[in-house]
């Protein structure tokens, strides 16, 4: 079934592919900065997502931090997956993150991915400050 196209859910990728995609996107290499800015701002938020059963926030195709995506970094955007993975970046920064596990981390898997992302952002800030 991976051969069929389910454009919501069945891509096959490496963590590196996700990180490269988001870095390229953030650099303006895939779409212009004006549209990227619009796509990573809240377009629909709060009001209790009927499906996720908690508050969620979406840009244009990207999920933004909210109860459904417990990332602390301001301006973060990306998309999590039911397998526990996450690909994302931060507005106004050229940064790409990819985390792809082969099974769902135990406990709060979304929190695991979100924490790794926040640590990656912190590491990036330190790296750039050097």
């Amino acid at each position: 079934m991976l051969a069929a196209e389910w454009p919501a859910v069945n891509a096959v990728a490496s963590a590196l592919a996700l990180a490269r995609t988001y870095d390229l996107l953030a650099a303006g290499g895939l779409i212009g900065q004006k549209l990227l800015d619009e796509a990573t701002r809240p377009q629909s938020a709060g009001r209790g997502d009927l499906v996720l059963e908690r508050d969620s926030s979406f840009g244009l195709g990207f999920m933004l931090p909210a109860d459904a995506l417990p990332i602390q970094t301001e301006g973060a955007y990306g998309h999590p997956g039911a397998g526990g993975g996450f690909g994302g970046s931060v507005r106004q920064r050229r940064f790409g993150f990819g985390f792809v596990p082969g099974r769902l981390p135990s406990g709060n898997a979304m929190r695991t991915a979100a924490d790794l992302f926040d640590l990656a952002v912190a590491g990036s800030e330190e790296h750039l400050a050097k």
Partner: protein
Amino acid sequence: MSGPVGSVHGTCAASFVPLREAFAACVGDLEGSGAGLAVVLEGRLVVDLAGGWADAAMGTPWTSATVCPIFSCTKALTAIVLLRHIDSGALSLDAPVASTWPVFGVAGKETVTVRHVLSHSAGLPAVTEPVTIEEANNAIAMAALLAAQAPEWEPGTRHAYHALTYGWLCDGVLRHTAGISVGEAWRVLATRHGIDATIGGTLDASRPLAQIVDPPSGPLAGAFTRRVDSDTPPTREERRARLAARSMRDRAAKPTHPAAAVDHKPR
């Protein structure tokens, strides 16, 4: 490089040691499986780590080249394809979907815009008609079903995660404006930039594909694995997935088909 479960290998700039430690702890927790983690900063690969097993039964370690189904992380790739089309001027964010996909403009969906589709506010969080797994594997057929449906709310007035329908709606928009599928458009882009990610299509046997262990439950599980556990009661996630994908209750269930079997597990 093989090693005990929990070991992490690869490269990591000094500033990312806390990230590496957290990742190692995570991998140690992924019994029988593994993970990859990468950070690219201003065009430079600063973290490229892997750990655990891509296929524990075969003794294949997870490496930085390992690929794996990424579930809804896919939605961002699909967004990028559609946003590029918008950026080129071929499509407007606030244009009604029906402007290029006329049969979509019925039953209260005349006002659904491309922006609504991308922001999960179009009002079509699920396919309401029962469908076969063959139909579900056909993005054109699924888009046609959605095009005939009535929205569950006035488009743009609220939102709910369109877990599966997001993809078929984006694909329908792209096919009706550019004559190409999301998977095809993504393949062109990924090839140009040397990005190892695909949406559908025959998997190149040379790509090291990880085995998913204990996949998320729900109607989608069969899309990613042959492992089916028909005895577990539905979880909250599964009920949520059912809401998102009611359509997967296959009226022509074939018990031998994993996706159908998952769908019909006792509730």
